[in-house]
């Protein structure tokens, strides 16, 4: 646990000093909103369409972060250092997933208000609490699956290609759950309650992949 915190602290510190990943993710999502505005030719979106635009944007922005997640480890020998240290290897998974989760939260703090400002028809105030809950669950799925995918992809020659093509199919069920749960929240006539079914599915998906990642992650670090 302590070693996980150390790795997490290192990652956050690195991001604070370089400002490499999060600004890119935020700018990407802002550009995506502009693109959606023109591509859909709508001044505002609501309901399921709004949920879809928001979720798809966050998903693709998350992919940017996922691609960069282990790059510093690989390029600067962080893997070797970590493997030499007498710590549990799962600490890396926990630390990286927590780091990615944090990145996604920061991204959403920027992107969700921007979405409310630029594209969303109904006001963002009433559904905010429900939206935070849904996004927390979806962030967990993105963080766990993203860490796993990134750890697989980082050692391949074409990691920028392999990461997204493996990650997207794995994230589709999480995307379905998030978009469906957020849809009623963003409805034009005031927020409905998010369907419990979808929250349960998201939660279950998080749980299963967290266990799965925990089981297989060690094999990705062996060398």
């Amino acid at each position, binding site marked *: 646990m302590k070693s996980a915190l150390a790795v997490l602290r290192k990652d956050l510190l690195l991001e604070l000093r370089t400002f490499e990943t999060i600004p890119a993710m935020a700018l990407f999502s802002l550009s995506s909103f502009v693109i959606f505005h023109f591509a859909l030719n709508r001044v505002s979106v609501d309901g399921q369409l709004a949920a879809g635009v928001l979720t798809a944007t966050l998903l693709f922005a998350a992919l940017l972060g996922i691609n960069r997640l282990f790059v510093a480890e690989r390029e600067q020998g962080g893997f070797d250092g970590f493997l030499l240290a007498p710590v549990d290897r799962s600490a890396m998974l926990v630390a990286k997933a927590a780091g990615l989760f944090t990145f996604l939260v920061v991204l959403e703090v920027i992107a969700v208000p921007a979405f409310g400002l630029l594209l969303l028809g109904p006001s963002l105030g009433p559904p905010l609490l429900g939206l935070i809950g849904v996004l927390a669950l979806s962030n967990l799925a993105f963080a766990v699956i993203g860490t*796993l995918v990134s750890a*697989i992809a980082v*050692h*391949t*020659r*074409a*990691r920028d*290609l*392999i990461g997204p*093509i*493996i990650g*997207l*199919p*794995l994230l*589709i*069920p999480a995307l*379905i*759950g998030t978009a*469906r749960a957020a849809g009623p929240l963003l409805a034009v006539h005031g927020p409905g309650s998010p369907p419990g*079914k979808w929250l349960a*599915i998201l939660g279950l*998906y998080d749980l*299963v992949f967290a266990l*799965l*990642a925990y089981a*297989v992650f060690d*094999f*990705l670090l*062996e*060398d």
Partner: protein
Amino acid sequence: MITHGRGLRSLSLATVVFITLALALVFFYAPLDADQGFVQKIFYIHVPLSIVSLCGFILGGVMAIGHLRTGERKWDMRAYVAIHMALIFSVGALITGSIWAKASWGHWWVWNEPTLVSFLIVVLMFATYQPLRFSIEDPERQARYASVFAIVAGAFVPLNFIAVRLAQGLVHPRVLTFSGGQLPGSMRLTFTIALIGVALLYMTLWKYEMAAKNARRQTRALRRLILGEDEFRPSRRSAAPS
């Protein structure tokens, strides 16, 4: 000298018998569907192909567990061949499914059809297996990473089906419920024979590819022995385990 194709002949014969029997039953025994007519007969090839390919994906994941647990390369080879064959079968299932959808629903692709959509997602997932292998150069690491991928993706198959099925209404006929569905007896018999036939075909092809892969590895080792390390030119890079 190890013989690789042991049991291949009897397996092939059984496959031929069952496939022939299945085709005969499909065309001469199974009744015509009341509202779909002749085109419904594609069901006897489409559904077995899909079921066998999904089982093949999961089988690949299970074999990959074997590889990670034992560390033996032969399990990686088995998993690779299982997934490779399942991919080929799944493309067949997608194509036959598309034809059937066009004929009976009027569209080549139907989005509000969970089974179709989740199958596509699974195929997209496993389609990345070979590019992943291909882009890792170190053979040992390639095998390990491919196994991790196969396990995750294998576990993803049922999960994905649950998620997508819940997302949409049911259009697909539920022929395979646990209570036996509403298939009339003659159709069920034909279907069962077809399913066995396709499963045997999968097993035969799996064994055949395994034999070919092993034989190739052995010839390569022999060539290296005869020619010596300097003269030996390694074969073209491939995604397959070597």
